[in-house]
């Protein structure tokens, strides 16, 4: 299935406003989806017999920095039987207060591989995945402060009496 057909299908099944932008210069081509419609779009791509994206290869979260003021979550989907791939991009505003986390719905009920990937994104970039059954830190200690892959991250000075800066 070609990228245009996937876009058409998504517009038909999840609504016209499900696609806010497309990007064909990247590999694989990327569809930008508003966070509110992510679940219905993902569900459609997962279940529809023409797309059948059964393999969530990768889930990436990234921070565009305070000047851009956005954070993104990128889903790389692959369909084993049809051998086609697509990337979904969800953009959320950066949190205003330091402790707050931007929220994105969890897709872990569709693809179980998202279970750990979302935990990792939560841990390193600091995105709250709504509906995730077990959102704990995965790579860093549970009492670590901050999310290291944010562009404005400052590491804490001491962790349990150990100097962090080297």
């Amino acid at each position: 299935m070609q990228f245009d057909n996937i876009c058409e299908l998504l517009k038909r099944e999840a609504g016209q406003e499900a696609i806010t932008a497309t990007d064909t210069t990247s590999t694989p081509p990327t569809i930008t989806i508003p966070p509110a419609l992510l679940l219905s779009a993902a569900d459609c791509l997962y279940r529809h017999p023409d797309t059948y994206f059964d393999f969530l290869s990768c889930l990436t979260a990234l921070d565009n920095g305070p000047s851009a003021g956005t954070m993104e979550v990128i889903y790389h989907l692959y369909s084993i039987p049809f051998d086609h791939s697509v990337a979904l991009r969800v953009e959320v505003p950066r949190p205003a207060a330091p402790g707050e986390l931007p929220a994105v719905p969890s897709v872990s009920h569709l693809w179980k591989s998202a279970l750990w990937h979302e935990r990792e994104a939560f841990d390193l970039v600091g995105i709250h995945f709504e509906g995730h059954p077990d959102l704990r830190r995965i790579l860093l200690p549970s009492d670590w402060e901050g999310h290291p892959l944010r562009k404005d991250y400052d590491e804490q000075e001491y962790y349990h009496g150990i100097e962090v800066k080297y």
Partner: protein
Amino acid sequence: MANPIQYTYDKRHLNNSEPNKFTEGHLQDGEMLINIGPQHPSTHGVLRLEVITDGEIITEVVPHLGYLHRCFEKHAENMPYNQTIPFVDRMDYLAAMNSEHAFAMGVEQMLGIADKIPARVEYIRVLVSELNRLASHFVAIGTYGLDIGAFTPFLWLMRDREHILRLLEWTCGARMLYNYIWVGGLFYDLPVGFEERTREFCQYLLPKMAEMEKLVIENKIFVERTANVGVLSRDLAINYGVSGPMLRASGLRYDLRRVDKYSVYPELDFDIPVGEGAMGTLGDCWDRTWVRVRECHESIRIIRQCLDRLQGDLKRTRDFDPRALVPKKIRPKKQDLYVRAENPKGELGFYFRADGKSDIPLRCKARSPCFVNLSVLSEISRGSMVADLIAIVGSLDMVLGEVDR
């Protein structure tokens, strides 16, 4: 007075291994919380398993990772692409060449020079990658024997792996962390005589492989310990994003070397072994080991074909420079790219976001196969015995350097 050496159980002792997901209050009557790890021979690295058992039966497993976390992504987002390659080696330190190949391939695709790489360079890349795949599978099979109580296969396979490490050391001077495959080329051409030596090595290896198969795969104790243990169904494997030999052992003929047709793999002739459940259920621990053994044979086939080409029409010439295409300044256009390659453990993916202005990626994410393969552990080990848990963990063949990155 009680004997001070005697262990007396105290509820507070659990707090010594925090953070735990479960506390004493979660346990039902008769259940027990056991920590396995952080260090265990079946995990190549540090991994702690929080296990809840009812007698000898496991009711829940929670893997705790991050003990080896070295911030690969943070490093990669702070330095130019070519300087990241030594860090890529350190993720899966048992198969560094394969990881380098994937990374270099991704950057070359972003620069648009992926199809200009000379054929000799590509063949050398595949040759060293497959040698490294052999070495990685040898560790997997050998230490798997160790996990379930057999010492001999470990020694034999380490002996054979040593030859591969020496060959690779000869090419680039390092035993495990090579920095050999560069963006746009190679660090150096193969040393003179390498092809002949490798051919001799293949000749040496085949009888050793047959010996090892007899010792491991057909061994009655081995079969009893691994067949019908840790069964991973195909649907569950796909849903969890499991890849590599683990997915193939569950019966799916899916290999990125064939699916994505990257590098020169389309020109090579090799099979993709899949699990058949010959000794038990499809997708059990025996199948996973068997797939790895079969893959070793396929790797030898690939190596021999590469050698044929490298000694034949792609023979080294005096004016051949493997570094001819290495760019002075790596500055890709503004784009996102997700590249993946078939590592010994499964699909290794790199996600890059280039902003088009600098030679440092805005985001570099490593999707490591071991991380994803490990996430299925609690699903497949529920209901099995504690001793089988070690067999299951060993059969995942993970390297914690890649799980934690």
